[in-house]
């Protein structure tokens, strides 16, 4: 299969302003994992990084913001053309890192 064919079959979305290529059907978490981006969110209390963990929608650790909508499970949501995905801070209501909640 030529490179151009593969490209046309791929979907392209944005993560933190960076263009990410995904294969059709691939989850956001898998597409990002393939580009070595494993930290998907920062927790509310400790401002600790979290990412893909259970891979089946049980643990809720891979939460990201998709097209402005927070708390999307990156392991379940398939990547789609033109999607804008951002890192989630805390519960998704905060635009930037918080933490220090201890």
């Amino acid at each position, binding site marked *: 299969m030529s490179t151009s064919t593969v490209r046309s079959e791929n979907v392209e979305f944005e993560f933190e302003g960076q263009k990410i290529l995904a294969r059709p059907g*691939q989850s956001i978490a898998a597409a990002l994992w393939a580009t070595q981006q494993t*930290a998907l969110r920062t927790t509310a*209390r400790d401002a600790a990084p979290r*990412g893909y963990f*259970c*891979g089946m929608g049980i643990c*809720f650790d891979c939460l990201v913001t998709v097209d402005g909508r927070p708390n999307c499970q990156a*392991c379940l949501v398939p990547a789609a053309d033109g999607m804008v995905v951002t890192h989630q801070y805390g519960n998704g209501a905060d635009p930037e890192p918080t933490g220090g909640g201890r």
Partner: protein
Amino acid sequence: MSSNPQATGRAAAETPRLVVVGAGPAGMATAITLAERGLSVTVVDQNPHPGGQIYRFPAVTPKTPQTPERGAMLRQHLAEHSERITVLPEHNLVDIHPGPRLSLCGPDGFRIVEADHLVLAPGAYEYVPPFPGWTLPGVITPGAAQQLVKSQGVAPGRRVLLAGTGPFLLVVALALHEVGVQVAGIIDTLRRRDAFWQLPSLLADGKLLKQGFDYVAGVSKAGIPLMTGHIVTRAEGHGRLEQVVVAPCDGDWVPDHNRSRPVVVDTLCVGYGFVPRVDLAQLAGCELAPTNLPGGWIPVTDPWGQTSVPGVWTAGDGAGVAGAIVAELAGQLVGLGVASSCGAIESSEAERSAEPIRERLHQLGRFRRGLDELGWPRPGLSQLADESTVVCRCEEIRRDEIDAAISAGSTTLRSLKVATRLGMGPCQGRMCQPACSRRLIDLGCNTLEEIGPPAFRPPLVPLTLGQLAGNDEESEDLELVENTPHAGPAP
């Protein structure tokens, strides 16, 4: 009873409404068995395609053709019965009301489905007890690694370590090796001599035992180091996993920290067996019984898989983890039970058809008990967390906060939840409560019976206010609703 024709305005006895929740091996086998007996059934599943976790349908088209496997066969049978089997993919079960009546949330919003017979086949998830560094990105479950490889077409890492206990680690290690991932090793808490004592049970099924030996041989042939009697004590890194600390452990899985050493990897896959999902059974009001498996509770059933609630049945790993082969057989058994209850087959025919299934299940059960005895978490496992280790991943509750609450008299899951917020996040305690129960037992605070099962509440999956209002797309108010069916203020 829900089958009252006058109340529902229909002849329920003639066309029973049958619903199966979960399209893994148990759910698929149940539906196929019912369809074969001439009954129509609706199968509800969270995923886009039937298969469950074990037979997950590839999300991306595999680059190399896959060998046909059992899951593909079951999917094909399901499709062959499409006149009788309706699959509702991408539907989450939100709540179960008496009746039973199910609230489902799918791509087109909410729907209510009523059932005369409801079969719960929710499956299981991996047991990972807290240890220092377990929340770092790069630490995942073996199942999550398998999903990346088999369903998503992504290598889970360049250099990967597998750790925990049980044959699943070998299966995943081989899958990773096949796609060219460097597997740094398999760290298993069991010692070879532990397995020796379970040989009498394991010999109950020579075929499965041979399969186990084949896995070990495959791992050896692949040059993957298999380190038995060892345990991962911590994961370390800045912002993501950089290295793992491994130590030899004794028969109680207590590590010898003096002999620990670091292993540099970019991914750690860690799992110590599986926790049956009892959330659905609990919402349906089914009686649960304590077991010594991770998680601690399974639904009580009769020999056909019917729970304490008439018309609610359960099969597969959610009814007690025993793997895909057992799940499929249990699904067939439940299918026969339901068909007989509906009058689609005579009870004598159900008994006759069930006999060979039960025989096989009995044989597999002995093998499974041997495996369970081996894999049953030992005390050392719940001592891995140090005082600052986050135990509840959602609410970031640390070990010292939990221990303080225990010292102050919280000795049940319910009181720990009230005292610390443990289990109040979106996972509802699925991740942390099995380990917390274990901790309470190991500290001698309480028995499993007194600690009680985790209390799951609707909605079982977090919903947005928009979804609750039925106008998901238009809603601008998209807060995560935590454990409350209505969008009231947080407690």
